[in-house]
C-alpha cells in the first residue's frame, strides 16, 4: 500500500496541484444516518467537503437521509443531476452504491467504510482495530482502578472490531486490566442518543471504570460529557474530539474520513481518481490517536513512549493487531 504518501501528502498537494481535468467536477456527499453534525464520521466527511471547497472554490452538494431506503434514491438523484464524484460514508450505503454504480458506469463513486469491487467505485476502509489498540494502551495506563469502559452504538461487527482492538491494546499495556463493554441499543437510535450514552457512562463509572471509550456516533458525546461531569477520562472517536472537554479527554481515535473525502474530490478534479479498494491503517495515516494542546497534560512521558512504541511495532509488522471481522472472533 503506497497510500501513506498519498494521504499524508494530500494537504500539501491540495494547494499545489492544478492539472487539466477531463470533465467538470461537481462533488456530492452523502452522510450516514447520524447526519452531518454527528461529531463523528459524517461530520468528518462534512469537514472534508468544506476543506475541498476552501481549497478549490468549487461548491459541493450534500444530503442527510432520514431512512436507509433513501440511499438509492439519493444516489440516483445525484447521478441524474450530473454529480461526479459522489462520496458516501457508512457501510449501510454499500448496497445502494453497488446498485447505482452498476447502472451508471460513467459516474465515479467513493464509498468510505465499505468494500465494493466495481470499475467505477473507490472503496476505502480503515483499520479501526489499530487505532483502537493505541487508545486501549493509553486507557489502560491512565486508569487508576484497572477498569476501563467501552460504549458501542449497536452490537454490530464493525463496533466489535473497535472493541476488540481496544481490548488488545489494554492487555498489551496491562495484562490484569478489566474491560467493561456496553452497547447503546438495538435500533439506529443507538447512534443518535447522547442521553443514553451519558447514562451508560455513569453506570460504568459506578462500577469502577475511570476511562471510557465511546464508539457510538453522536451517542458518544453524552458519554464524553458524563466523563467531564464526573471528572473521569474519556476517549473520542472518528473525529478529533479532544477539544470538547479539555482536561478529561484522554485522546481520540481519529479516522481520517475528512482526508479521504477531500481527496476523492480533489483526485477527480486533477484527473487522478482511480477505482479500487484501500484499507488504511496506522501505516497509511488513515487512523491514529490524537495528541494536541487539549490533552498534552494528560499524557505522561511513559504513556507517550509506550504508545509510540506500539505504533512503531504495528507499522513495522512486529506487532499484529487481530481484526475481529477477519474471523468473527476476538480472542481476548
Amino acid at each position, binding site marked *: 500500500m503506497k497510500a501513506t504518501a498519498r494521504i499524508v501528502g494530500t494537504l500539501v498537494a491540495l494547494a499545489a496541484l492544478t492539472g487539466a481535468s477531463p470533465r467538470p467536477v461537481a462533488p456530492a456527499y452523502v452522510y450516514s444516518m447520524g*447526519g452531518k453534525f454527528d461529531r463523528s464520521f459524517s461530520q468528518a466527511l462534512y469537514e472534508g467537503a468544506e476543506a475541498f471547497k476552501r481549497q478549490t472554490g468549487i461548491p459541493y452538494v450534500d444530503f442527510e437521509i432520514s*431512512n436507509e431506503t*433513501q440511499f438509492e*434514491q439519493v444516489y440516483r*438523484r445525484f447521478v441524474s443531476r450530473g454529480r461526479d464524484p459522489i462520496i458516501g460514508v457508512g457501510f449501510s450505503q454499500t448496497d445502494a452504491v453497488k446498485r447505482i454504480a452498476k447502472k451508471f458506469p460513467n459516474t465515479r463513486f467513493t464509498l468510505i467504510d465499505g468494500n465494493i469491487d466495481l470499475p467505477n467505485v473507490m472503496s476505502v476502509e480503515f483499520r479501526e482495530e489499530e487505532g483502537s489498540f493505541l487508545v486501549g494502551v493509553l486507557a489502560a495506563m491512565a486508569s487508576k482502578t484497572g477498569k476501563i469502559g467501552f460504549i458501542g452504538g*449497536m*452490537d*454490530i461487527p464493525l463496533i466489535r472490531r473497535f472493541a476488540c482492538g481496544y481490548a488488545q491494546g489494554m492487555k498489551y499495556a496491562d495484562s490484569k486490566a478489566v474491560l467493561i463493554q456496553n452497547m447503546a441499543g438495538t*435500533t439506529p437510535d443507538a447512534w443518535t442518543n447522547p442521553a443514553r450514552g451519558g447514562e451508560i457512562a455513569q453506570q460504568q463509572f459506578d462500577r469502577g471504570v475511570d476511562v471510557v471509550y465511546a464508539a457510538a456516533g453522536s451517542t458518544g458525546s453524552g458519554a464524553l460529557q458524563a466523563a467531564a461531569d464526573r471528572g473521569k477520562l474519556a476517549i473520542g472517536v472518528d473525529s478529533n474530539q479532544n477539544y470538547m472537554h479539555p482536561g478529561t479527554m484522554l485522546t481520540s481515535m481519529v479516522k481520517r474520513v475528512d482526508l479521504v473525502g477531500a481527496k476523492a474530490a480533489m483526485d477527480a478534479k486533477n484527473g487522478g481518481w482511480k477505482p479500487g479498494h484501500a484499507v488504511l491503517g496506522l501505516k497509511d495515516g488513515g487512523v491514529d490517536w490524537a495528541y494536541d494542546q487539549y490533552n498534552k497534560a494528560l499524557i505522561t512521558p511513559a504513556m507517550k513512549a509506550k504508545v509510540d512504541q506500539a505504533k512503531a511495532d504495528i507499522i513495522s509488522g512486529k506487532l499484529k493487531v487481530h481484526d475481529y471481522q477477519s474471523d468473527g472472533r476476538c480472542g481476548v
Partner: protein
Amino acid sequence: MNQSLPRWVDIGLIPLANVLLAFCAAGLIVLAIGADPFAAVKFMLAGALGNSEAIGYTLYYATNYIFTGLAVAVAFHAGLFNIGGEGQATLGGLGAGLAVLALDHTGSALVIVPTAILAAAIFGAAWAAIPAYLQAYRGSHIVITTIMFNFLASALMVYLMVNVLMAPGAVAPESRDFADTAALPLISDWLNALGFHVMESPLNLSLVFALVACALVWFLVWHTPWGYELRLMGFNATAALYAGANPRRIILLAMMLSGALAGFVGVNEILGVHHRLLLDFALGYGFGGIAVALMGRNHPVGIVFAGLLFGVLQQGGTELTFEMPQVTREMVVAIQGLVILFSGALALMSRPWFEWSYWFVGRKLAVRKAASA
C-alpha cells in the same frame, strides 16, 4: 353540537381542508426560515408525483403505510391500540427472509414467494399474539406490551443478524443475497414489458397485495359475524359479552390479524426491495400506520388515501430537502407532523365551521326556494 353532514363533506371535504390547513401552517414555517413556501409545495408535489419514478417511490412508500394502517385499524376496531406494528413488521420480514433463505435453492418462485408471504404473516401474527395473550388473559395493557415488543423485536433482529444470519465475510450485518427467483416482480418491469415506458422504482407486486388486503379486511370486518363481534367489542365491550361473544378470543384473533398485516411490510421490503435480510427496514412504518389509520378513519378506503398522502409526504419530503438545502430533514419531519396533527388530533377542529356553513347555505337555499315558489 353533533350535527350530521352529508358523507361527501364528512369524509371528503373536511379531510381535504385539514390537509390544506396543515400545509398553510407548514408554509409559515418554511417562510420563517426564509424560503419560498410556494416553491416548496411545488417541489414536494412534483417530487412525489411529477414523473413515473417519483410516483413509483410514492406508491412504494404508500404500500408500507397501507399495511401498517390496516394493521392498526383492525386492532382498533376491537378497541385495541396496537402500537407494535414496527416490531411485527420486523418479524414479518424475518419470517419472509428465513423462508427464502431456506428455500431459494429449490428455484421455483411459485413455491418460494407464497411460502415467504405466509411466513411473514405467521411471524407477524405470532409476535402480536404474545401481547394479545397477555392482555386477554393477564390484563397487561396492550399499549405497554406492544411498544416493549418493538424493542424486543429489534434486539432479536440484531442478535440474529450479527450472530446467526450474517453472510460470512460481510462488513454489514446483512444476510447473503437471495436468489433472483425469490424477488417480487417490479411493477416498472411489468409496465415496460407491456410497452409503457416507466422509470425504475422499488414499487413491486406488494402494492397489489396491499390492495387485496384492503378488500379482505373490508369484507372481514363488515361482512362476517366475526367482524360484527369485532366492531361490537371495539365500541362496547360489555355489549359484546351480552351478545355472547368471547372477548378473549376476539382480542387474540384481532391482534394476530393485525400482526400479520404489519408483517407484510416485511414482504414489501425484504422480498420486494432489499432481497436480503438486514436491520431496520421497518423503521417508522409501524408508528406511521397509527396516523394513517386515524386519518383513514379505520376504513380500508380511507387508509388507502391516507397511505397515499403519507407516501407523497415521504417521497415529496425527500425531494424537497434535495431541491431546497435550507429545508433540512428535520423540517420535513415537522411538516409531516403538522399534517398528522391537523388531520388526526385536530380533525374535528374545522368541523363546526363546516356544520355552520352547511346549515347556513341550506337555510339560504330553502329561503330562496320558498321565495321563488
